[in-house]
């Protein structure tokens, strides 16, 4: 098998991690984690601050190299085929990451260009997107003058503009009110319906309920992984918040 061939994974698996580990000196940030994510799934990646979820996600996106273990994203090896992976994923960071001093359409154009969306498709797709979001009148408005909720919706739409197979969302709804958060999740569902796999970290437990499956990281390990319903049953809990607290109680690292 040549270096650039995707590995043979089950058809519906888009992320596969095997003993994925990251150490910084003596400190093990991510400790032999194993999981898989299926196509079109909304996969919640939960954990207290410092549990290692951001580090794990950075390795999957190619922002950080793993110390040992392996993982494949969209069929490509995260240590050797980052270039291939980068073309097939979208990413929305914790910090709001559009350019405030560029207009809405300029931001869309820029990111579309970076991800190689063909020139002739950018224009119509931009108009369609703005229509769907109800932002038609804001096309030529500087991003900095939009309210935060709008910016986040825009940021998400930009992250999936090139139709990636997976989009990584790093605490996308920080600082937004519950009503706006629900609207944001509607966008996430729409994307998942189109077949885009969603990998999302969050610390809002109400959001965990919206996921198809969630994994909960404690001290660098994945201590639980199942659908929210099954987890609640297994831990005898009323909601995800209780599940989370039962697991996090045993944590040595406190956020």
């Amino acid at each position, binding site marked *: 098998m040549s270096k650039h061939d995707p590995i043979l994974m089950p058809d519906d698996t888009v992320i596969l991690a095997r003993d994925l580990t990251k150490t910084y000196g003596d400190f093990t940030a991510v400790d032999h984690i194993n999981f898989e994510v299926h196509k079109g799934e909304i996969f919640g990646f939960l954990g207290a601050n410092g549990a290692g979820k951001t580090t794990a996600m950075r390795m999957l*996106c*190619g*922002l*950080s*190299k793993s110390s040992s273990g392996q993982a494949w994203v969209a069929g490509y090896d995260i240590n050797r085929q980052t*270039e291939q992976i*980068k*073309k097939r*994923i979208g*990413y*929305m*960071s*914790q*910090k*709001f*990451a*559009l*350019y*405030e*001093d*560029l207009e809405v359409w*300029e931001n869309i*154009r*820029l*990111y579309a*260009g*970076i*991800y*190689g969306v063909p020139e002739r498709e950018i224009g119509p797709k931009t108009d369609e997107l703005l229509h769907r979001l109800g932002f038609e009148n804001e096309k030529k408005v*500087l991003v900095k003058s939009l309210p935060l909720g709008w910016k986040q919706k825009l940021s998400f739409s930009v992250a999936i503009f090139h139709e990636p197979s997976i989009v*990584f969302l790093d605490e996308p709804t920080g600082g937004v009110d519950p009503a706006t958060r629900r609207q944001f999740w509607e966008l996430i569902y729409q994307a998942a319906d189109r077949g885009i796999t969603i990998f999302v970290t969050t610390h809002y437990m109400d959001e965990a309920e919206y996921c198809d499956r969630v994994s909960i990281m404690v001290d660098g390990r994945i201590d639980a992984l199942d659908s929210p319903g099954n987890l609640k049953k297994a831990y005898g809990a009323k909601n995800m918040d209780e599940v989370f607290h039962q697991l996090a109680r045993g944590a040595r690292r406190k956020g």
Partner: protein
Amino acid sequence: MEKMNLQKAAENWKFFMAFVRKEFHHIFRDKTSMLILLVMPILMLVLFGYALNTEVKNSKFAVYDPSKDEVTRSMVEKLQINNYFILKKVLNNASEAETAFKKGEVSMVIVFSDHFYENLLHGGYAQIQLLADGSDPNTASIITTYASTILSSYQLELMKIGKIPYQITPEVKLLYNPSMVAAYNFVPGVMGMILLLICAMMTSVSITREKERGTMEVLLVSPMKPLYVILSKAVPYFFLSLVNLATILLIAHFIMHVPIAGSLFWLLTISLVYIFVCLTLGLLISTIVDTQMAALIISAIGLMMPVMLMSGMMFPIENMPVYIRWISDIIPARWYIEAIRKLMIMGLGFKAIIQELSILVGMGIILIVISLRKFKIRLE
């Protein structure tokens, strides 16, 4: 296969240009950036060229002349007839000099000895004392130099017409800048500083801004090569510094009458090399620090201060202690400023700047290698 590579190259070029456009948007939409980029260079040139002028015109002086003879009177006249000196006061005794200084009435006092002409005529020896206010040593040394030049040229005249038999006159001649016009000295220095400021400071601040705002992370996740991200940041500042270079040269030449005596071609060549060095310095800074504030402070203290103090822009390098001279040797601006002096003012050619040019090229290569390495490490 070849067609695909070509297509890929064209695509990369398109991304790259989209990015360069974006950088120009950032700059043109930010009033502070525009102000720094377009107004400050002119302001600095005017400030250093005119306001902080070390050229001394209309200096007021006082005279104590107990001798009051033909020669002393005409010496005082000689001083007055050019526009450097104005006779403000005639003192009645030497001790009044101090009061005149303290009141700030004069910046120089000339004291003649008793029987000045007689002594000069018979003994071939007479004394003049030039007193200046040493609390401003720069001005003091400049005006005393002016005054003694004027006085010794008068002595020379006296000798020629045979009025005095024997006199050794020290010859003071200022090379290249005979009238000691200060702008000559400052223009190369201001060029060195402005280009450094725009390239190194603005580039490092604009890269760290992306780190701070989180957009850098998004770019690093994208298929865009990190090298392109960095290069696209440098391109706009490269062009803007060319605009500034042209502005400075035009103002310096046509308004301040600084000559461009040497080769314009080499002047531009070495400027391009220097701009490149400054850009790589900016890149290096942005790989070391993560915040705009840190980038600003490092550029200001780590780059601007040494350039102001140790590059020979304000103080001659020859007068510095040895270890300061070592530091000044590693400051790119020092070599640039020296080369520009040689090219613009002394009118020397390529051969005279080979050393400076090769040092700058070497620095550029070392810096670009280090900063590209460092940038890669940060991605791990």
